[in-house]
């Protein structure tokens, strides 16, 4: 057991998962991820490179990944905004990589050192065009480690970028962490092509919707493109081909959604009042639900460890017997509450508890709405 900060756990999780390349541009409250990588990566023969901005950072990560690296970057909202175009490249060209977004309070430079959970929709829809993405969200230092490992595993399995959506509190918090031994957690590497080099097509998917990926410098020469492309990776403007490609980058996640969507239940099964929470707010929610139970109200919490794809089925199941559903989150609009309403329907009693002044939600804020 060691005392570890959330950001450090993210960096350690990435290295445990096999990451050997980090490119980034420092930004509060994510900089400790970069600092830790700058210390550890060169010792392991890996590479830490500080780029000129976040646009270049995600670009270098994509380049390194295509050269065979497990690569990642960490940033916060303003930098994440700058990364969107090339994150879209990674979706389009199906490049495995991990982006850590430690959310801080906006808009713009906002309250630079204060927490927020207002990037949920930016993570999902921040890029132009039709795209699917995986996003995971830790609520503790241990989850910072474990969900980062999981982020790399998903990224490698499905050949897709994965966003780890943390927040300032979980990233700067310290807790005791037992770093797993080597081999204790499963580590997954991307599927490599087995066909002869002359037959290799970098975007020809197997039945699981995922195409094996070679590396630049390996015997299989290949081409990738940000433009619409066919199985060979070269530009292709045929409408039928475009439809197939867009279908597939969605379907390869849809068909595996049960493996990707991770939730945790804290007395959610028999809850009359269900709290759906994610990130640091899970903890205040659990404390509130526990107190509600001591006051005679059957409250429970469903934690969304996976934010995207959204936990439609899990929420529907957990909310089946609840008379009220509460979604506490550190944003104004109720970004997740809106999704929950979409899932459960307009007639259901769904209430948001929202904080958008850079202050966290406390158990009493949530308890009030449970008991109301």
């Amino acid at each position: 057991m060691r005392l570890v900060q959330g950001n450090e756990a993210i960096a350690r999780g990435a290295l445990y998962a096999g990451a050997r390349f980090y490119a980034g541009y420092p930004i509060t409250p994510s900089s400790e991820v970069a600092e830790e990588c700058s210390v550890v990566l060169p010792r392991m023969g890996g590479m830490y490179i500080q780029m000129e901005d976040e646009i270049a950072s995600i670009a270098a990560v994509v380049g390194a990944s295509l050269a065979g690296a497990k690569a990642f970057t960490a940033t916060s909202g303003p930098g994440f905004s700058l990364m969107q175009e090339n994150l879209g490249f990674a979706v389009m060209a199906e490049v495995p990589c991990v982006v850590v977004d430690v959310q801080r309070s906006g808009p713009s430079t906002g309250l630079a050192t204060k927490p927020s959970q207002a990037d949920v929709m930016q993570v999902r829809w921040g890029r132009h065009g039709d795209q699917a993405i995986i996003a995971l969200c830790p609520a503790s230092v241990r989850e910072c480690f474990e969900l980062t490992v999981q982020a790399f595993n998903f990224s490698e399995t499905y050949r897709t970028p994965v966003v780890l959506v943390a927040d300032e509190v979980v990233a700067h918090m310290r807790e005791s962490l037992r770093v797993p031994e080597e081999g204790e957690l499963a580590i997954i590497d991307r599927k490599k092509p087995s066909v002869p080099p002359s037959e290799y097509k970098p975007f020809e998917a197997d039945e699981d919707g995922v195409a094996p990926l070679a590396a630049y410098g390996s015997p299989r020469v290949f081409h990738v493109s940000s433009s619409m492309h066919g199985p060979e990776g070269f530009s292709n403007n045929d409408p039928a081909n475009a439809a197939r490609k867009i279908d597939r980058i969605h379907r390869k996640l849809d068909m595996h959604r049960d493996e990707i969507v991770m939730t945790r239940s804290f007395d959610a099964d028999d809850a009359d009042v269900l709290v759906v929470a994610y990130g640091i707010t899970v903890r205040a929610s659990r404390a509130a639900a526990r107190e509600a139970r001591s006051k005679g109200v059957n409250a429970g919490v469903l934690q969304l460890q996976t934010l995207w794809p959204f936990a439609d089925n899990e929420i529907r199941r957990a909310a089946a017997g609840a008379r009220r559903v509460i979604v506490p989150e550190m944003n104004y609009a109720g970004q997740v509450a809106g999704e929950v309403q979409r899932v459960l329907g307009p007639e259901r009693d769904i209430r948001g508890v929202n904080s958008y002044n850079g202050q966290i939600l406390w158990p009493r804020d949530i308890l009030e709405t449970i008991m109301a």
Partner: protein
Amino acid sequence: MTVFTQGLRYLKEGVTPHMWCPGCGNGIVLSALLRAFEELAYSNEETVVVTGIGCWGKADDYVVTNGFHGTHGRALAFATGMKAFNPRLNVVVLMGDGDAVTIGGNHFIHAARRNIDVTAIVVNNFNFGMTGGQVSATTPLGMATSTTPYTNPERDFDICALADVAGANYVARATPWHGFELEANIREALRKKGFSVVEVMSPCPTHYGKYNRMGTPVEMLRKIREMVLPHEEYARLGPAQKKSYFPTGKLVDRDEPDFNTRYDEVRSRAMKD
């Protein structure tokens, strides 16, 4: 006639005729590049041609090496990741003036400062050809484009001077008129460890030439030839005369350690720690 088949083995089958306009310099630059590949015996497996967006950014479609076609202006940043992680790769970045010094100017100066061992072949046609001839950061003051109909109020970047002061190990300028010199410069740039740049001042008769009444493609190419002087001759000019010309040939040749060499030093310090 061997000279005209040299490099052909790097040209993808079935892609000609290429998509560039008659009179465009891109075909000449591509053939010079592929001839240089052959002279250096580059393998397809260990070579990556990286492009951005623009007419010249289509060149990756024509080669049989590994290819990468990315977002506008970011080619050097993608290339940096590839080369930094796998130093054995030959990473060649093909950019227009838009990719290199307009939208991507920041990456250009930082790639030079970092001295990452990639080669940038910048075709400078003084405007955004692909999208209809809009003004770029290399459109000279007072010239017309589709978005500077009353002529350009801004000054232009000197790409080679920028690369020089930012720290590139190798900088050269050529034109499609000087095809063999161009190939020699590209070959030297590819051989050079560290960041290397070859700027090719090239005609865009379809847009830039049309807006500025530069005549037929051949007349336009001739005008570009008249804009440049071999750097030895250029050096003998007085300050006033120098303003009328761009020097060509090898302008910078240094042997500063490249990024990967420096990073290996970081690694050995880290491992001792």
